[in-house]
């Protein structure tokens, strides 16, 4: 897994609640057997019409907005457990997703792929939206070590929570399998005593 470093970036705002993983990557694009290439179909049905033409009113087709940070309304990533949603977000070029609430499975999938999900209070989320809609060039700085996300223009900063184990995985580029495999004897002993 790629190591996560400090990131300063512009923002793609998506102020919609309950964005489910079927919107992030519709089921008909889950037929691939590798992890690559899902970014092309990220938010497919919001991004393209039925003829495959870009919908100009969708934020990702608006050249005014770009960046490595996706900011979305609450309950982001609900629905299906498809990890393809995290792969699509990463493949498109996002390293961070910010919302006021994440669905559990998506959050885990994102962390397992080096995409940092940051939960912020509703008011902080509104502030980010206000700033980016006033100035699309506005930037955020995410510092994983310090666990802070800062709106550079205003200096507003929020200290976010992350599981300390997951934090060290992201910083060091480790994954869970390395950790669990280091306990193989313990697993076998558990099986024996059952």
């Amino acid at each position, binding site marked *: 897994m790629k190591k996560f470093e400090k990131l300063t970036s512009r923002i793609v705002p998506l*102020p*919609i*609640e*309950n964005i*489910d993983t*079927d*919107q992030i990557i*519709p*089921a*008909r694009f*889950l*037929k*691939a*057997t*590798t*992890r690559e290439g899902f970014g092309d179909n990220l938010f497919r*049905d919001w991004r393209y019409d*039925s003829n495959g033409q870009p919908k100009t009113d969708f934020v990702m087709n608006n050249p005014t907005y770009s960046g490595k940070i996706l900011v979305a*309304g*609450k*309950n982001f990533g*609900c*629905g*299906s*457990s*498809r*990890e*393809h949603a*995290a792969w699509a977000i990463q493949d498109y070029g996002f390293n961070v997703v910010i919302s006021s*609430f994440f*669905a*559990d*499975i998506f959050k*885990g*999938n994102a962390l*397992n*792929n080096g995409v940092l999900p940051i939960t912020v209070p*509703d008011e902080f989320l*509104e502030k980010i939206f206000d700033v980016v809609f006033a100035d699309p060039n506005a930037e955020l700085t995410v510092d994983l070590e310090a666990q802070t996300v800062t709106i550079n223009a205003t200096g507003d900063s929020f200290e976010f929570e992350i*599981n*300390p*184990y997951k934090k060290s995985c992201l910083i060091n580029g480790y*994954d*869970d*399998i390395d*950790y*669990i*495999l280091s*306990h*193989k004897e*313990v*697993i076998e002993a*558990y*099986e024996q005593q059952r």
Partner: protein
Amino acid sequence: MGKTLVEKIWDAHVVKRQEGFPDILYIDTHLIHEVTSPQAFDGLRKRGLPVFRPNQTVATADHNVPTLNQHLPIQEELSRYQVDMLTKNCKEFGIELYGLGHPYQGIVHVIGPELGITQPGKTMVCGDSHTSTHGAFGAIAFGIGTSQVEQVFATQCLLQQKPKTMKIEVNGELAKGVGAKDIVLYIISKTTAAGGTGYFVEFAGSAIRSLSMEGRMTVCNMSIEMGARGGLIAPDQTTFDYVHGREFAPKGEDWDKALAYWQTLYSDEDAQFDAVLKFDAADIQPMITYGTNPGMGIGISEAIPATVDQPESERPSYKKALDYMGFRDNETLLGHPVDYVFIGSCTNSRIEDLRAVASFVQGKKKADNVEVWIVPGSKQVEAQAKEEGIDKIFEEAGFMLREPGCSACLGMNEDKIPAGKYCVSTSNRNFEGRQGPNARTMLASPLTAAAAAVSGKIVDVRELLLEEYDVV
């Protein structure tokens, strides 16, 4: 202090608990299917690892498979490739596969219970969010991502934070025509689609207890739709009777031993839940959804809530959902025309669902404006339906009984609802485009779906239910 059921099962499966780390949780049974496993098998190959416990892993092909002509090669190239890949991977890693053509093939959450693989007290995972279905037996069962599928392949364990626990009690008697699906749609309409996030939910109370195992599976199946990691119900005689004698259920002395343990699986009187919700079964009417998440549900005779009554920050998303569905504030859905009826999915494709539909439609015909697809959950359900003559009833009614798979629940195969069309669906998700690009899904019970099929519009099934139909 006593323990909740979740804590009892969880604690019995903790291989290692270490301060600052999630628990290493042992997984008894790993179910896999063609869509979320190929990248996990690839990961094993890259690491040079075998599947640690292949005999605790069971595979089937369900998400991608056609529901017509399953005896022929899959027409669609990518689907065929993915299903072939599953066959190849299972062979290479020594995993039992109930693939197309096998008498046990079916939707992964239908075959686990019917084969007796699903048992009380187990930990079960699958790369599918509706794994919560198996919680109906008093198991800890939840959906995982593909990286976690790889973890379980490699170690038979998962790194997991112990979840918070919530108890949802539904007490009292259900009205005629109101069933398990209505209970769970009602609960989600109250909690919202995010209200259970971070929790494992134990469903309890007399209305839950009165449900059959299949009804309980419907309820637990949709616990993910309120955001919960999983849902479960304490096992009781109904559970034990269901499991007994099934293919992979314990036999003889093993059965007695297992049963003695299963009888200890309940939340202690003094157990503390992090949250408790209580509902009255008498308040529940047949439910239907009007929006684009499962929390957007109403009683069939109720009006769609007005946009102005939503929290201000949520109004744009709410309006977007109503616009997508072509519905307006304060509209009631009774009488609204329907184009498609889909009866199937891991929520409602079991034999009792098909029996309920058959008993309602017997002697009736589908409305001319509706196309009706019935997709059984498994080959065994399909065979049972044929044995009971249910297929004939459907045929006479003009319903199409297809072959097993996930089908139009998520439209990964050819079974898609066309753009703009209204589908009353017994599945679990009404997300935008879920059943096909721009398809409009209204979630409901099998009975409400059957009533829509014969009426050609949304109707209150209670008004059509004559005394002679003893269905719930």
